């Protein structure tokens, strides 16, 4: 027995020592990018395609262009399992390796990282998730939430409803139901929808789904049948989305009137409803499909050479492409940082400046092979989201298609709420610093 104990002890001791030695190992001629992913845990179904997309785009840049601006990108994925504790470990690892940017990939991880960003000098990129208030760049100089926030998304939902009904004045007396996860993420759109309901005279009905009941929405749909809302907006996540689609079909709710937020737009979410799910909608800011030069390049340089973790038929799915979109934002931020700072090997501080002056135009998208894949994105010093456009996508039974035009959020309604929330955040966190970082001239 004793020898076993001693051996175990020695092994654990050696590992302890190794753990203490997770040292900065950054070569001078490369840029280190830490990236969270969740290929394990309850949300692995959505996390895996997103992670594949992010990884493959960076691998493609390294293979095709030799990195960004001639500098190789060292892209390291850290597994979080969508768990806040593990995300914090990943953040610490990213920090110790001097990452130039951090993508938290969960609301919990974003909220935990926000207070540290300005101290560790690591810009946070929470792409259309996280804290909506962080769109206020004056209060959160280190946090970025492009291309739009959940509040923008909710306002686009209202615009979509109005467009189908034939004008904003037709909203009066209508009923909009919000199915949402009963957690901070799900409750995000409520303040905006309440404000808009008051202004335009429609009624807002809330249908909360507890995290434990994601796959058990029977009673909730009974109330939906009773209330008969004209439209339903689904701020759901994980197993909740396919269940909502299935329940809508079962309860004879017109599926075309059910619209999900962009995280409810996975291929598997819609596929669960079978052929009757045709017509299910979700908001989106990237196109699905493989018919874009950028995706073809990924297939050519990465997938066909066996460098991808994704099976070839999954390349080009909606969530895969969203991963590509996220990595594109990271890469463009680094490229822009190289221009702004004049350095090849940029630091976190440079990338923050790069993000703040980010302006991806139509012409630039074409250069990237992303014409029609995404809409132009512009971030400014005070506006860290850009409140960019999104569109309504429709499930045609086998794949996501673009249904409506790119729509702008109701920025005039959303912006004051964001500024108020940012002020509130700074007040509650005593010692929250005033913005010390100067704005770039070009922004």
């Amino acid at each position, binding site marked *: *027995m*004793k020898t*076993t*104990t001693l051996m175990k002890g020695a092994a*654990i001791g*050696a*590992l*302890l020592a*190794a*753990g*203490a*030695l*997770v*040292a900065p190992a950054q070569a001078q001629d490369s840029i280190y990018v830490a990236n969270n*992913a969740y*290929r*394990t845990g309850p949300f692995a179904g959505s996390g895996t395609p997103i*992670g594949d997309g992010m990884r493959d785009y960076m691998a493609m840049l390294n293979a095709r262009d030799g990195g960004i601006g001639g500098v190789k990108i060292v892209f*390291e*994925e*850290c*597994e979080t*399992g969508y768990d*806040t*504790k593990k995300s*914090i*470990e990943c953040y*610490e*690892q990213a*920090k*110790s390796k001097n990452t130039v940017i951090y993508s938290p990939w969960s*609301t*919990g991880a974003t*909220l*935990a990282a926000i*207070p*540290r960003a*300005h*101290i560790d000098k690591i810009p946070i990129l929470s792409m259309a998730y996280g*804290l*909506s*208030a962080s769109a206020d760049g004056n209060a959160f100089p280190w946090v970025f939430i492009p291309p739009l926030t959940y509040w923008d998304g909710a306002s686009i939902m209202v615009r979509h409803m109005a467009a189908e009904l034939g004008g904003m004045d037709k909203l009066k007396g209508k009923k909009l139901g919000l199915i949402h996860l*009963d*957690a*901070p993420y799900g*409750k*995000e759109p409520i*303040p905006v929808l309440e404000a808009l309901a008051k202004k335009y005279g429609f009624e807002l009905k809330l249908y909360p789904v*507890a995290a434990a009941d994601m796959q058990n929405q029977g009673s909730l749909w009974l109330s939906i049948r009773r209330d008969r809302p004209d439209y339903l907006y689904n701020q759901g996540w994980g197993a909740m989305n396919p269940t909502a689609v299935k329940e809508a079909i079962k309860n004879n709710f017109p599926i075309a009137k059910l619209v999900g937020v962009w995280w409810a737009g996975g291929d598997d979410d819609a596929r669960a409803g079978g052929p009757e799910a045709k017509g299910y909608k979700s908001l989106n800011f990237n196109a699905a499909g493989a018919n874009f030069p950028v995706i073809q390049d990924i297939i050519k340089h990465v997938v066909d050479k066996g460098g991808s973790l994704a099976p070839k038929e999954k390349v080009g799915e909606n969530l895969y492409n969203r991963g590509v979109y996220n990595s594109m934002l990271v890469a463009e931020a680094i490229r822009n940082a190289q221009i702004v700072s004049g350095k090849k090997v940029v630091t976190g501080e440079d990338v923050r400046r790069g993000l703040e002056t980010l302006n991806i135009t139509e012409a630039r998208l074409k250069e990237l092979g992303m014409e029609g894949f995404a809409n132009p994105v512009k971030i400014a010093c005070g506006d860290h989201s850009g409140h960019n456009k999104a569109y309504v996508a429709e499930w045609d039974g086998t794949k996501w298609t673009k249904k409506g035009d790119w729509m702008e959020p109701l920025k005039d309604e959303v912006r004051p709420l964001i500024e108020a*929330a940012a002020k*509130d*955040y700074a007040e*509650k*966190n*005593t*010692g929250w610093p005033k913005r010390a970082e100067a704005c770039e001239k070009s922004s």
Partner: protein
Amino acid sequence: MFYREAGQFKSTYTADMAVFPILQDRIGIAVILLLAFVGVPLIGNDFFTTTVMIPFLVFSLAAIGLNILTGYTGLVSLGTAAFMGVGAYSCYKMTTWWPDMNIIVLILVSGLFSAAIGVFFGLPSLRIKGFYLAVATLAAQFFLQWAFVRVPWLFNYNASGAIEVPLRTVFGVPITGATASPETRYFVCLCLVVVLTWLASNIVHGRIGRSWMAVRDMDIAAELMGIKLLNAKLLAFAVSSFYCGVAGAMMIFLWYGGGEAADVFNIRLSFNVLFMVIIGGLGSLIGSFFGAMFIAGLPTILKFGLPAIGIPLAGATAEHITFMLVGALIIFFLIVEPHGLARLWQIAKQKLRTWPFPY
């Protein structure tokens, strides 16, 4: 050869009843404390301190809390995470009420709120035993976690439902908030854990601890001997919840630094702490530390340590390997010694006494 008590005579009853009766043990504990207070801050970097040591200390305290209830009093609880949550939320409320109060005092006081809630949910333990009690404490877990999401007053009506940890200083040194250095937070954790462990050791070795163990071994016999079950059981719930509450407050204020707290204190955390107690050793304080290191520290060390010593594992693969290794180790240790790592430690010490000439 080195670990032998020959020649150490005790001339008083007090010396005979000491927690560490052997000189070598006392030297050992002094070395461990010296390592913890001086060695870790000197050798460890920020990454090691924040991702291994602070979680280890927080979970050790939570495991001690549950061990008092389950290991010493024999009452199984699945509400540990909820009681930790009560500590975290009450600490948050108190920092908003009294911004000038010493944060370390607040962390300790938040344990009292947790103790009160713990006593309330411990009431069924007078009638229900064993597995049935475990199910009854599940009520605490579900109800409190529901309250953490649904009662906006608890998180000061924050739009994201998150706890925001403000900057608090003690003697000018930031203890909580983003500017607090990992070393400071580690020191505060360490001091709290050392003091509370010392306190727990005194409680379980004294009259109260003996009455708890009597209740655990056979409650009817304990009652016949004159132990009031009501007092003993509820006191166990109170003390246990106090420790869990302090651990919860430490978790959010000194480790996480704020965030989506309702989601943190979920049933999985309750189970994890229970596993720490079982694998570490029921009814053993040192076992709580072993268990915390095994369940909370080992996965992190494996996940980041294996790639660091040159084994090429990336992202999800490291996670999968960690799951498999830890799972295999749990089975291994439970087969080798069902009484936990603490018992294994005791056996090792026993063997060491006769080494190198075992008989």
